[in-house]
């Protein structure tokens, strides 16, 4: 930090305007297509990620409207059984793998570096690569669907239904390979987040001063790292069974179908928390800002996040209660499934205490938080119900479960996400979203959601199974189904209004100041939208709420180079400055690497030799990526 070197230009030597000019020259993404394809700016990539994920949300929503159209009346003829199977499989796969997980990670890609006060994300080129992989995986799924080759085996692709015997053609392979794409990108982002949080925090941001959203993303990233390899092993084994006749899931040759369920749910249950924990962080952030006080019980909140993360890895069997497992195992997993309600409940009470003690301001983001609490508590209660084996046996594979997980996932993740988009939109775009439209959006989505999904509990108790493309008029289900389909229109109108508001505000919304909500975390200490280099000088943090201590002045650290991309590395626990570290510049190689990997993965659906021949271009692209180009970032 203090070492003087005449040949390197440092920020200490410059005035504010000159500093801005030089830092922009170093960090800005060049204009034009080439610049756009080779950028590694975490804010540009984060915005792309969020936009792409929201497009997939809209597409997945359209599929659900098609399903509601088909189910509105008994014996409807709009969609045949084969198409219906593809639609519900792609709806689930799309919402889980292409929307929910990526959108949460995308918010982190944009926000975490700003919230910890650094200039860029760790491994910025890996970040670019992860976006291209994600996009390719999404396109693979949707293009396959357009070609009538969409997966039709459910979002969890249970064997033997998805195995070589019962799933002819390439539909199940497309599902399995799409998993590989999204897992590669999710794992990459998880690694970036962990390193950014551990090593790039602003000086003084010790572990007990990390914003709760950043904590939640840290725990989530560890969950991704520990849980996602299971699904990669599972989907690889499935592809091998289908392509080169291995026998992992073939009982006739010593394989086992339940092995698939174990591997899938060892990933699949943590997946729920991979989606839910970031939402928890968003809620904490919004609650703190709109009640004008720090969240009650910071330490308890962090412990709740960590214990949820640990417990999440020990509940997977509750998805398999009807698979005939040993009684003791079922009891253990019932207990652990109920135990996870404790940290969740603790957090709810901490938020309530915060609101109780604060002065709540009911702006749109806060409305979504209230909606989240109501809906998520209902979803949590039905969750405790299905944790009990006898009850689960009754409602398994009925609409009761459909209602339960939509309450948990939409209530627990989409509501906080919409609140978070209203909250951080000014930072992303430099413009405010409409408060009037925002209230309409909230009202329509809240009412539409409850009217659509609450009756599904009753349908389930009346015995309507999931994943059926039609039903007979004698069944006592038609009235509720019509009600649900009509309510789905209200929900859809709410989302449509949200998209209109976002597009319109992005173009012509009121200009946003740097800190429109009077929030206290570091992302609001820079302009809206932030400059390419995030902060002109690295902030120094002295408390959990750096902007509240002294709103007009923020202490900063200086000494970073301005003529090349450089950021400050700090220690894990205390965030004491350790070194100056170069940050990689723009590069087209991540795109080439992603294209080579994409070609290999898709080709390998058809022949195992693709892995051999495809690895050559992948290796070339990776060598090109890492070979030093003689820039100062490469050599210092």
């Amino acid at each position, binding site marked *: 930090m203090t070492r003087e070197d005449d040949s390197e230009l440092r920020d200490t030597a410059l005035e504010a305007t000159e500093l801005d000019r030089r830092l922009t020259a170093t960090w800005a993404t060049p204009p034009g297509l080439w610049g756009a394809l080779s950028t590694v700016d975490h804010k540009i990539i984060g915005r792309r990620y969020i936009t792409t994920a929201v497009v997939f949300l809209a597409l997945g929503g359209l599929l659900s409207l098609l399903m509601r159209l088909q189910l509105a009346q008994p014996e409807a003829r709009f969609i045949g059984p084969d198409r219906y199977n593809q639609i519900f499989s792609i709806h689930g796969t799309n919402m889980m793998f292409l929307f929910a997980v990526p959108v949460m990670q995308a918010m982190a890609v944009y926000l975490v570096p700003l919230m910890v006060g650094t200039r860029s994300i760790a491994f910025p080129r890996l970040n670019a690569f992860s976006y291209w992989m994600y996009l390719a995986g999404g396109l693979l799924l949707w293009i396959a669907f357009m070609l009538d080759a969409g997966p039709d085996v459910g979002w969890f692709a249970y064997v033997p239904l998805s195995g070589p015997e019962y799933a002819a053609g390439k539909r199940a392979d497309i599902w399995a390979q799409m998993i590989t794409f999204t897992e590669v990108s999710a794992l990459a982002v998880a*690694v970036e987040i962990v390193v950014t949080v551990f090593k790039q925090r602003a000086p003084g941001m010790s572990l007990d001063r990390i914003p709760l959203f950043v904590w939640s993303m840290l725990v989530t990233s560890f969950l991704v790292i520990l849980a996602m390899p299971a699904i990669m*092993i599972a989907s690889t084994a499935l592809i091998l069974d289908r392509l080169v006749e291995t026998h992992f899931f073939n009982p006739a040759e010593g394989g086992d179908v339940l092995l698939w369920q174990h591997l899938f749910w060892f990933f699949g249950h943590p997946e729920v928390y991979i989606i839910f924990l970031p939402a928890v962080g968003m809620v904490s952030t919004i609650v703190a800002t709109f009640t004008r006080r720090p969240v009650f019980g910071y330490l308890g909140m962090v412990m709740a996040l960590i214990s949820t993360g640990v417990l999440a890895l020990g509940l997977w069997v509750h998805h398999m209660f009807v698979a005939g497992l040993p009684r003791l195992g079922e009891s253990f997993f019932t207990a652990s499934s109920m135990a996870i309600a404790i940290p969740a409940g603790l957090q709810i009470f901490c938020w309530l205490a915060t609101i109780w003690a604060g002065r709540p301001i009911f702006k749109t983001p806060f409305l979504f938080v209230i909606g989240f609490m109501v809906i998520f508590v209902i979803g949590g209660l039905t969750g405790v119900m299905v944790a009990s084996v006898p009850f689960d046996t009754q409602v398994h594979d009925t609409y009761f479960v459909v209602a339960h997980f939509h309450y948990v996932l939409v209530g627990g993740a989409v509501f906080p996400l919409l609140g978070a988009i209203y909250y951080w939109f000014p930072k992303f775009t430099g413009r405010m979203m409409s408060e009037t439209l925002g209230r309409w959006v909230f009202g329509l989505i809240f009412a539409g959601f409850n009217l659509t999904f609450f009756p599904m509990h009753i349908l389930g108790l009346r015995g309507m199974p999931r994943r059926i493309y039609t039903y007979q008029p004698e069944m006592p289900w038609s009235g509720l189904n019509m009600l649900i389909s009509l309510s789905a229109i209200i929900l859809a109108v709410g989302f449509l209004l949200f998209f209109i508001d976002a597009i319109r505000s992005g173009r012509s919304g009121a200009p946003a100041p740097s800190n429109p909500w009077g929030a206290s975390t570091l992302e609001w200490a820079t302009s809206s939208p932030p400059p390419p280099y995030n902060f002109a000088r690295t902030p120094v943090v002295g408390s959990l709420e750096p902007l509240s201590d002294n709103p007009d002045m923020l202490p900063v650290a200086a000494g970073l180079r301005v003529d090349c991309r450089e950021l400050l590395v700090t220690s894990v626990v205390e965030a004491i400055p350790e070194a100056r570290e170069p940050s990689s510049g723009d590069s087209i190689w991540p795109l080439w690497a992603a294209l080579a990997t994409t070609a290999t993965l898709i080709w390998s659906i058809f022949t195992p030799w693709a892995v051999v021949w495809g690895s050559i271009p992948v290796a070339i692209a990776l060598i090109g990526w890492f070979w030093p180009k003689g820039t100062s970032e490469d050599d210092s």
Partner: protein
Amino acid sequence: MLIEGTGFALSIVVYLYLMSLAPSWPLNAAPPDLLAGTSLTALLVASLVPNLFLARWARNQNLLKVRVGLIVMSLLGIAPLILRAFEFPAMHIKWDQNAYGSIVWVMLGLHTTHILTDLIETLVLTCLMFSRHGDNGRRFGDVSDNAMYWNFVVVTWLPMYACLYWVPRL
């Protein structure tokens, strides 16, 4: 490495899970021959010695010694691949015969991929250290990272070796 470590651990779990279901293990096959696998294990463990020296030279930024070390480690990356080629037939089963064959081949394949990846990285670094980009702090950092990765490849093999060769003999 945490990601891959989880992957290796899961492959062992799958192996043990399939074994727990099987009436006899290995399924319709003799236990694997020990020669190829054991010599490979010995070779991998022995390769840790030059590898640790290489890591130390990279820390001291000794270009000449690092170059020599990288050439040695490149050779020590190729040699296990030759032995590995004899390990697959030593299993006495093919991947498409039964679930035992499937998991054995996948475990060997998974580990082979890691030897191969590290070998390619070592070869690229060797070229790099002989180029004008070599004498640089960041390159030495890359070399010690690569040495660390080789340690990981060797250490993860030990439980897999025990599982593949000795568990069927229990």
